[in-house]
């Protein structure tokens, strides 16, 4: 009974093993970008070696193997997917080129870049224009057929795509989510004349209103589906060769895992699943520690990712951008990102000091890495201020060059702004920290909440030096820094539930009519049917299953919907309840004045989420490791408001459970450093988590 989670997302490939009673073991190796499975086998070898068993023996004791991969994300970003042939309704062949105008060019870009009108170069198209064919067919808004599709025409178009060298086919016809018959005809034709070609139908992958987003979703799936399937297939094969017989699971952006069998159909949701592991692990930790409202914060080398968990549920993004100009109609866990990481570059024009969104990443990385970057970064500022000790960075494996960092900050920031070195460094730190607070404030307010009522869960290598400060700024009083923080994504991947999601658009006026109730219930049945088709008919009957519906509702004519949780089928007398739920959600977000009782409501989508836990996870208290109090080292640091401070620097491994450390203090642990501000306290709980308590000033 061991559950493995392996995450290949970043510089390192992380592995977490969760034992039957919840005990955690972890390890990491350098990722191998070109062939990610090499690092996977390597880290598994290391896990086995530390138990002094062979890899085969080790794997024979593993119950489930869950994997978070960036293979699909990278293939999309670098446009290294299949040669996709796209079939659309005739007359609309340019749907990906017209791309809803500027949305297809600047959508998904950080705002400061989007504001530069002339340098927002569109990315290489997903589908070459010469690989798009129009089918002579038309379905109208009510689903009725205006122009019947013919087999002969479809055959001709498919053959012509095959002759152009299409390696996979995406189909998105107008209104196909309302009436899929023409897409199904394409499916049967392709099955006859080109059965070897992978095929994606928009009516199956994303049956939602809005042809641009639906086409993007389908085309992306056809683009990275084959590569994803191939990668997972070969990984499964390697594991099988080592004698591993148990299931392999793959992480999705929708907050759960899927299986190799379904990975082609769900390939689009494997994209950007990276940061989701961390938020799943946070949810679990929150449940154990009794936290009902959590903000998750994860700062790495290039970005700062924030998520919300309220009563065990994630916020959702219904049309996330996968890449510049590519919004999709498959929802995912809402994780909002800004370009604020350790590698974020500070710039000034002599008037203003700005940090990010440009980043030196981890390669070449900050100036102090000494690998050729000359533009000062956040990490450089932290080194200059003394928060990061150059000699002990990464456990002393990569000593940093403080002098390089100092020179760069002085020349590029301090001098032009007329500041001294430390003011400039502290300025970079303050600006990036306050942009983090701003982001969290924005997300909580937009979701209708007050950040002061939340607990913050922080992980990721660079978060620890900022979280105490931005939490204070936000009025947050408690921060959890998990024991498993160094491999938190992998931990989340290991424990993630199996999740199936499906959406069906059924744009209709919400009214007290039999017709509405019937269509509603038909839609519910068809969603459940889809789930059974995907997971087996018996699936919904299993004891641990959670079935969850959401309705996307808006005032008639609005462009944005509000998501409402809904139990299932509808009775005619329950219709007013939809209105009540809608108005309550509206009031919470925009105040009572925004509610307009007289306006009618329309329903756009019904969404289904079915999940099943892979196992019952627990959290295991750690045995006390530190036996005696070790006196901390005292170091002098420069703080933005308190200026020069003498602070105690504690080694994580030396901290005794439940012993309170008073700020100002610094905690060092392998690859991460945590800043405990003045007037706050930090202690290690029985699970090894660090809990920081902040007090208002």
């Amino acid at each position, binding site marked *: 009974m061991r559950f493995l989670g392996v995450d290949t997302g970043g510089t390192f490939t992380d592995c977490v093993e969760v034992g039957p009673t919840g005990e955690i073991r972890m390890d990491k190796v350098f990722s191998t970008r070109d062939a990610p499975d090499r690092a996977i086998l390597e880290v598994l070898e290391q896990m086995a070696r530390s138990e002094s068993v062979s890899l085969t023996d080790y794997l024979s004791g593993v119950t489930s193997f869950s994997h978070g991969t960036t293979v699909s994300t990278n293939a999309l970003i670098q446009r290294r997917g299949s040669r996709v042939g796209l079939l659309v309704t*005739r007359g609309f062949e340019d749907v990906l080129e017209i791309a809803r*105008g500027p949305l297809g060019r600047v959508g998904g870009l950080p705002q*400061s870049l989007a504001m530069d009108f002339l340098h927002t170069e569109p990315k290489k198209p997903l589908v070459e224009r*010469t690989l798009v064919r129009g089918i002579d067919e038309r379905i109208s808004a009510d689903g009725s057929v205006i122009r019947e599709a013919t087999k002969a025409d479809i055959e001709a178009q498919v053959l012509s795509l095959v002759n152009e060298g299409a390696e996979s086919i995406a189909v998105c016809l*107008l209104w196909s989510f309302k009436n899929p018959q023409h897409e199904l005809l394409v499916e049967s034709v392709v099955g006859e004349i080109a059965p070897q070609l992978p095929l994606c139908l928009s009516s199956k992958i994303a049956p939602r209103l*809005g042809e641009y987003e639906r086409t993007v979703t389908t085309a992306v799936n056809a683009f990275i589906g084959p590569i994803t399937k191939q990668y997972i297939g070969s990984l499964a094969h390697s594991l099988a060769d080592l004698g591993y017989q148990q299931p392999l699971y793959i992480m999705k952006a929708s907050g759960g895992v899927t299986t190799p069998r379904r990975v082609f159909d769900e390939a689009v949701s494997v994209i950007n699943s990276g940061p989701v592991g961390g938020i799943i692990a946070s949810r679990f930790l929150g449940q154990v520690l009794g936290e009902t409202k959590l903000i998750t914060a994860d700062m790495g080398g290039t970005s700062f990712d924030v998520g919300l968990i309220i009563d065990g549920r994630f916020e959702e993004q219904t049309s996330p951008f996968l890449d510049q100009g590519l919004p999709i109609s498959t929802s995912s866990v809402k994780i909002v990102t800004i370009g604020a990481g350790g590698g974020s570059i500070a710039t000034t024009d002599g008037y203003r000091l700005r940090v990010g969104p440009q980043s030196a990443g981890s390669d070449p990385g900050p100036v102090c890495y000494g690998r050729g970057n000359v533009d000062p970064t956040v990490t450089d500022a932290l080194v200059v201020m003394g928060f990061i000790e150059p000699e002990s960075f990464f456990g002393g494996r990569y000593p940093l060059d403080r002098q390089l960092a100092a020179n760069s900050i002085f020349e590029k920031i301090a001098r032009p702004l007329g500041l001294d070195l430390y003011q400039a460094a502290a300025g970079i730190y303050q600006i990036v920290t306050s942009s983090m607070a701003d982001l969290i404030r924005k997300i909580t307010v937009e979701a209708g909440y007050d950040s002061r009522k939340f607990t913050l869960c922080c992980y990721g290598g660079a978060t620890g030096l900022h979280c105490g400060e931005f939490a204070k700024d936000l009025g947050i009083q408690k921060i959890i820094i998990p024991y498993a923080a160094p491999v938190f994504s992998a931990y989340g991947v290991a424990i993630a539930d199996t999740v199936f999601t499906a959406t069906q658009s059924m744009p209709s006026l919400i009214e007290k009519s039999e017709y509405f109730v019937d269509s509603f219930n038909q839609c519910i049945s068809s969603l459940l049917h889809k789930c059974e088709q995907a997971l087996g008919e018996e699936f919904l009957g299993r004891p641990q299953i959670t079935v969850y519906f959401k309705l996307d509702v808006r005032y008639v004519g609005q462009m944005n919907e509000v998501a409402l949780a809904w139990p299932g089928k509808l009775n005619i007398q329950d219709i007013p309840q939809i209105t009540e739920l809608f108005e309550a959600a509206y009031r919470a977000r925009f105040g009572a004045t*925004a509610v307009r009782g007289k306006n009618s409501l329309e329903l756009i989508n019904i969404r289904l989420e079915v999940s099943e836990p892979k196992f019952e996870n627990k959290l295991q208290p750690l045995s006390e490791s530190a036996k005696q109090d070790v006196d901390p080292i005292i170091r002098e640091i420069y703080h933005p408001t308190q200026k020069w401070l003498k602070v105690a620097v504690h080694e994580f491994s030396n901290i005794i459970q439940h012993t309170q450390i008073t700020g100002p203090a610094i905690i060092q642990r392998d690859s991460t450093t945590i800043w405990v501000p003045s007037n706050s306290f930090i202690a290690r709980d029985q699970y090894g988590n660090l809990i920081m308590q902040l007090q208002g000033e």
Partner: protein
Amino acid sequence: MNIDVDPITFEVIKQRLWQINDEQSVAIRTISSSPIVVEGNDFNVGLFTADGRLTTAGIGSLVHVGTMSVVVKNVLSKADRIRDGDVYLINDPFLGALHQNDVVLVSPFFVKDELVLWIGNVLHHPDVGGTDVGSFCINARTLYQDPPRYFLKLCDRGILNTEVEYTFSTNSRLPEMVALDLKAQLGAIHAAKQRLSSLVEECGVELVSAVVNRSIETASVQFRTLLESLPDGTWSTKTVMDGARVGDNALHYVCCRLVKERGHLTFDFTGSSPQVDAAVNCTYHATFAGTVVPLYSFLCQGDIDWNDGLVDHVTVIAPEGTVVNATFPAPVSICTVGMRWLVTVAATRVVAEMLQASSAHKDRVCSSWNVAANCNNVFGLTPEGKQFGTLLSDHRGGGAGARSFADGFSHAGQITSFASSLGNVESAEWKAPILYLFRKRLIDSAGAGKYRGGLTAITAVIPREVGQIQLNATNTAGTIYSNAFGIHGGYPGVGSQTLIVRGVEVGTIFERAEQLDTFHDLHGTPQFLDSKASESLNTNDVLVFFAPGGGGYGDPIDRDPESVVDDIRFGRVSLRYARALYGVVTSDVQGLDASATADERDLIRQDRLRRPSLAEFVTASSEDVALVCEKCNEFVPRGKTNAGLSAPRRVSPWAALKSNGDSDRMGILELSCPTCATLLSVEEVDKSYFYELRDEICE
């Protein structure tokens, strides 16, 4: 009370203010039911100093950035008594609204009896009354046929005045929608106020005020410094509107002359046409707002905050009684897509010429950007008998001008807003009883050049399940003059056009056409509409329209021939125009025929050298600026250039469709270097000017 604030604190608080203001945008975009707002981004939000200067603008339409503060200043000078919790509603164009649809809400923010800031937002309401549906009053002849103008107190000390709300909404043809939009605006102010209160509580009112003032000062210094790095000079242009209201076919001009001197810009609109008895007129405020748009888009970009920092460095001269400073009671309800649009087009061009003359900022040159708003409003009754009305969003699919280093963006949206978008076909069909026949990229719609302009899209729509739909076509201009300037020898893009193809057998349309690519495939009788038109669309009629393309940059025969081959392959340029304008010849397999191309380009050069000098026909004017030939590295006086005049169809098969590709009013004038034959300028000119000599210099 202006306390000193260090650059770090400044940045931190300024960012915070930006986000508080952005909360307004989020509220508006979520609540509004208007596609013009949510997809068209036709709204904006702002924070203002106590004396009404804009300190923080949102990412809505840039055209509002230059005018919102006028409204606040007018409230300050005209309102009886301003108290905490008051919210004013203004849509009067003579008080700073652009046109009557743009309803501005502003509210003072008090801290302990002291007026500290103003919060405001402006939103394009879908209908506020007036003679025409949608309040774009293309039939109005006076201000009294335009929609009503308001200056109202919507909330009094925090209490909504329901009588005022009622009066405002009941004057609209879409009372529920405007009421919802008003809710969105109030919700936005509410959200911003709450968060401003906590910011003030945290940092103190002195610090917040200091940051607010310094934001404007900083932007001002940054903007002046940028101007000082640009060359001084004078650049002029003229934009032309073909028809100001339904039934009018006359030409009306916006003339613009930019004088750049050290840290100051003067835009002088002297020479523009007298104000018209049509609602396209601008008030002075709208002209000012339209003028500064390219300054934000191309000079400030993301580096200099969008606020009133630049107003000290910009003078706009617009003579009273002209279309750019219309006096009471001139109708003005379509000024935003009327003369205001052309003001922005003219300003964009002269700013591009200024940047083209600079060495450091040539990468910001862009001489045109979706130069007309080809707005097509359809309305009528649904099969169920309910009123519907919607603006088709396809006009945002126009092209942008080429850049000095790359092609222009196709389907670029508007220069006033990087965050606007086209709606999905399915969304439009869900909202209105219409059926799209096609929405395609329009081949040959972009201005030719070394770098090609961006392409536009063409759309065809029929009524679905209803016998009739009303159409109000409000196209800025473009049926004769395109105004889609190229630069540095690049050709203009195609102008915009709306047409109704009558007598199409819609029932069998799919059977009869293998492929519906253009209106020709519909086999009906095309009726090319004037730029302002009111028509009905019946069962056998197809509405077809396209927005303008973008102008080119540089001489097309200097374009990399392989890029032209790509353009042919991907359906952006036809074989015919590839040969005529780019001198590119392809072989059978769609590959480049390099030697034929070289020969063709040589022929083009020889032809150009044989043309007579411009001076033989036109007397030089003192206004004329010498053209620059980069190849010969010298200035060429305009009179010395070789001049060729041709019909509009030279630019594109879609140009001047109404007059069959020709025009007795406008011609395409090509000026090339007498030494190396490189095109230095391609312009749309008034043909009468050349009339007598036309035969001699025409091709």
